[in-house]
């Protein structure tokens, strides 16, 4: 029995853009939406996290930080692209420093659409990420022997 569904811990990283989605992630922690009632915790520490939620498009500078955070997370781990910027770059995709969506640099598992992504959509995305987390755990355990 895997317990990831009951206790997914999130690391949130804002890779640039307008900060709209960034704020929405914070909003989903407030009493109105209360992420914690599903056992979801916004940890702020890659070593404790199961899900990496990225908001905003990736640029030449933030890609280093993003990869660094991802590498520090213990397996099994899932990446969630929150908002159109993180999916494709949105209105910023033609900027000279913007590389595009998160999936240009890291393997994204869940895409949460919206500009900005609504808190309900984000919570929905986390629940979906949990399913993938459980699947990845099963695979990872098999691989380990």
């Amino acid at each position, binding site marked *: 029995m*895997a*317990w*990831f569904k*009951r*206790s997914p811990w999130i690391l949130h990283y804002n890779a640039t853009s307008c900060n709209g989605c960034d704020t929405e992630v914070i909003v989903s922690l407030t*009493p109105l939406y*209360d992420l*914690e*009632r*599903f*056992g979801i*915790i*916004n*940890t*702020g*520490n890659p*070593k*404790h996290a*199961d899900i990496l939620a990225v908001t905003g498009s990736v640029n030449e500078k933030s890609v280093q930080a993003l990869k660094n955070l991802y590498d520090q997370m*213990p*397996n*099994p781990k899932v990446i969630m692209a929150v908002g159109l910027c993180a999916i494709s770059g949105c209105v910023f995709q033609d900027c000279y420093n913007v590389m595009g969506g998160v999936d240009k640099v890291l393997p994204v598992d869940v895409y949460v659409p919206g500009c900005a992504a609504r808190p309900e959509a984000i919570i929905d995305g986390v629940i979906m990420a949990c399913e993938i987390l459980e699947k990845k*755990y099963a695979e*990872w355990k098999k691989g380990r022997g």
Partner: protein
Amino acid sequence: MNSIYEAYQVLSMAERALVFLVLAPIAGGLLAGIDRKLSARLQGRYGPPVRQPFFDVLKLFQKERIVVNKFQNFNIILFFLFTACSGALFFAGADILLTVFGLALAGTFFILAGFSVGSPYSHLGAEREVIQMVSYEPMVILMAVGMYQATGSFKVADLVQYEAPLILYLPGIFLGFLYILTIKFRKSPFDLSMSHHAHQEIVRGITTEFSGPALALIEITHWYENVLLLGMVYLFFGFNPWIALVVSLATYLFEIFIDMNYARFKWQLTLASTWLFTAVAGISNIVVLSVMK
């Protein structure tokens, strides 16, 4: 309720210790769950289920083991062992001094674990943990001394069955102990070294570099520690088990309430206020008691 005392006396010391080792994590986990639920309620949120701490720990055991220094987990295991042992000694009815020193030793290993990794956040957390320890340790020892003064024994088994209410002899000590209990429970305003709340200025403080099973072990150790500390509160009211149980639980709820109402103190204020409180409430209590006797 007296039948509980009788059952307690029938058990040998080893059996009592075993009962503690088995039941304490369950009780501690439930307390942690109540804590999170109640904190959420006080903030106007719905809050996670009461079983949530168990889910967290079970999940952490399934995560990958990442080790940055081979001594880091060694220290955490010693932290766990010493805390569990001092708790077992306490509930077996052994010497309270031994319990207090065992707990201090466990805290030392936790600090060493914080220093053994590379992260500056962890180092900062460990430094703050040292300050916290310096703040609360005098009061913990004064508690043991005060209890000895009142009853003439250091043995927990004698203390808990002392016929007169200890709280009447040691009101100051009790207040001082209540004050440092906030530090020991890692509650605001004294959660400098690591906080159970998600966001802190030093990431996760002393536990920043611990992941997966090691973090789960730290969590379980805190459960043991919390039950042990509530057991110490119980001692003050040991003359009547019902009152003692209610007061221990009320103390825990009170700490949650304090936690919700305060912002984090700076370390200077933490140290100064704790020592001041220890001096005023604790030492004066001891002095008055020695004059009276």
